[in-house]
């Protein structure tokens, strides 16, 4: 059962190019801001409230995006080692280490690519490491850190007190922004921004919807990255909203022409966990080789689970922001809810299997994925493969091991099909 890939396949399509363009513009803005007095603030991706920064024209900076880019360009290791030299352990999140190392090496500030933020908005949504990460940034830059403590959503949903608590903190954030920028908070401006957010969110969930088609027009794991930048970092801008209009057009076109991202779609899989950015294409090839394509992924919902219907509501500005942060993103959900989310993907997107990519860096994702494997193989009868590496640290990717496990998994699935045919 020889595994195959199209030689040097170019995965980039129109959407990749569009995404690249608008993300590059944003990066340019960041670089310019290092030399201009433009106010900027750090914020994390998951369940963020970038809309509030936008309505004060504060430039949002996402350290995760920085770490991600270092990894995918295979530049992360020296920075990781740099921060290990000041005391970070080999077991710490490599996203933090790469970002801190990059900062220490002058990547942030005057001669770097990222401005020193005027303040830090610690949107603590699920990931406890966020708090430490941003504390370290705050101490490196000696700038104020605003804590947005988002109560973890339990199976029985958030209480009214949870929502009240978040609303109060959002108002305190707004007050801080007013003080910093000298601008008065303009609720109508926020409504406008949220309008753009909602438009982008509808586009994004429409795209996800299209992955139910066979063949799927794009890979909901590997290609989703092109849309995650715009939906999470640029959300609330007209640019992002327009981008999604074009993306929807593109993919609907493919669907109506019966075109899929793979010439030969043999296995539809649901992906759990972040990808190994330092070996992004190498890893994708291992699946492509078997005609395996992701029809859904949990990672693409770290910023928001919009495909389940929620969008920001200009009529309920702060309320909907609070709900987005507490309820409608993957990071603030329990493992039990994540299991349910994955199961609904398997059912609604007619997936053949679940693939768990377990990464050492992010325990929010990985801690307990063995139980997830147990649940889906034993309780749900969903063929499940679990492989391990890291999303940022290239030292944890062993290709021979990885390939061996993936090949064996799809050999087994292939064999099942053949027998299915034989007995049919």
């Amino acid at each position, binding site marked *: 059962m020889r595994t195959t890939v199209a030689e040097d396949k170019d995965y980039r399509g129109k959407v990749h190019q569009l995404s690249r363009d608008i993300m590059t513009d944003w990066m340019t803005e960041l670089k310019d801001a290092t030399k201009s007095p433009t106010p900027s603030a750090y914020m994390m991706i998951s369940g963020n409230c970038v809309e509030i920064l936008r309505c004060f024209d504060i430039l949002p900076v996402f350290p995760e995006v920085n770490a991600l880019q270092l990894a995918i360009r295979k530049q992360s290791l020296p920075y990781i*080692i740099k921060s*290990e*030299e*000041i*005391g970070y*352990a*080999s077991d710490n999140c490599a996203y933090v280490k790469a970002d801190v190392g990059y900062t220490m090496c002058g990547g942030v500030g005057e001669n770097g690519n990222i401005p020193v933020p005027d303040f830090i908005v610690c949107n603590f949504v699920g990931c406890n490491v966020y708090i430490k990460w941003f504390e370290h940034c705050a101490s490196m830059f000696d700038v104020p850190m605003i804590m947005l403590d988002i109560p973890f959503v339990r199976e029985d949903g958030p209480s009214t007190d949870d929502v009240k608590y978040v609303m109060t903190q959002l108002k305190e954030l707004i007050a801080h922004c007013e003080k910093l920028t000298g601008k008065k908070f303009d609720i109508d401006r926020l409504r406008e921004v949220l309008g753009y957010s909602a438009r982008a969110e509808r586009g994004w969930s429409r795209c996800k919807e299209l992955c139910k088609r066979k063949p799927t027009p794009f890979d909901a794991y590997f290609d989703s990255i092109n849309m995650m930048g715009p939906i999470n970092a640029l959300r609330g801008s007209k640019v992002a909203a327009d981008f999604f209009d074009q993306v929807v057009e593109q993919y609907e076109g493919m669907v109506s022409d019966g075109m899929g991202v793979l010439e030969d779609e043999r296995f539809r899989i649901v992906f759990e966990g972040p990808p190994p950015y330092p070996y992004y294409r190498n890893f994708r090839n291992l699946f492509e080789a078997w005609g395996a394509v992701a029809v859904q992924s949990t990672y693409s919902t770290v910023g928001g689970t919009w495909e389940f219907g929620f969008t920001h509501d200009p009529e309920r500005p702060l309320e909907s922001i609070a709900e987005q942060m507490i309820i409608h993103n993957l990071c603030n959900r329990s493992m039990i809810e994540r299991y349910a989310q994955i199961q609904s993907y398997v059912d609604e997107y007619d997936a053949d299997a679940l693939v768990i990519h377990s990464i050492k860096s992010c325990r929010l994702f990985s801690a307990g994925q063995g139980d997830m494997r147990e649940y889906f193989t034993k309780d749900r009868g969903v063929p499940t493969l679990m492989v391990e590496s890291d999303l940022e640290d*290239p*030292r*944890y990717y*062993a290709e*021979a*091991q990885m390939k061996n496990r993936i090949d064996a998994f799809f050999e087994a699935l292939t064999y099942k099909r053949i027998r299915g045919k034989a007995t049919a």
Partner: protein
Amino acid sequence: MPYIAGIDLGAGATKTVVIDGDHRVLGHGFCRTQADFDKVAQTSLDAACKEAGLERNQVDYIASTGLGRYSLTERDIQITDLTCGARGAHKLFPDAGFVLDMGAQSTRAISLRDGGKVKTFRTNEKCAAGSGGFLERISRYLEISVDQIGSLSLEATDPQPISSVCAVLAESEIINHVSEGKSVADILCGAHQSLAERALSQLRMAGLAGPVVFIGGVALQEGMVKACRDRFGFEVLVPKHPSHVVAYGAAILGLQRYHKREASTAIA
């Protein structure tokens, strides 16, 4: 004239140095460490005495160090190998402020204070292929003897780096390099370079800012020394008997304690 022995019971080998009251080295002892630490220590001590032309009972004071320092029943005092290595290295190179000790089991980076006292130190992380034992294992796999490693590595033309931090996975990388038909020299050189990289970051954690004394068995491998010299950006000093420096330091500290003891007994 007092005679002092420093015995370093390491994971790989047991080293002994016998000095006299003027810190003159009279004899060395060396033998592979085996299950019975006490016996190994005796053998190594006897060898050193023989070289020194001394009878065992002429040795006035014994300082033990290394992993097995507590197992030596005959010791007068035990001191850790970090303290001893620092002191020994300082005695040999008084101007160097940093010590890199690479042994079979562990790699230590030490920064020194005046008088060769330990200021800070970093030992190698768990699950890291960062010690001499790793080199021994791959040399065994490559079917060459340990003492060939150093010189062979110098002949490399296209070094093959090792990325994995786990010794076992690093070995599979080596196996992979071999199957790719890479030359033994290139593989060894790559291993040396990777080890040097790790040692460098350990030294940086200890605040590297000047010349480094490179001690321990691995310092005997020219290829390793070269890899360090290429990377550290500071002078790398290698003593004549790198694997005996810890035992030497033990002997020096032992002499200090000996004098203290004599003084106190004299009063009494």
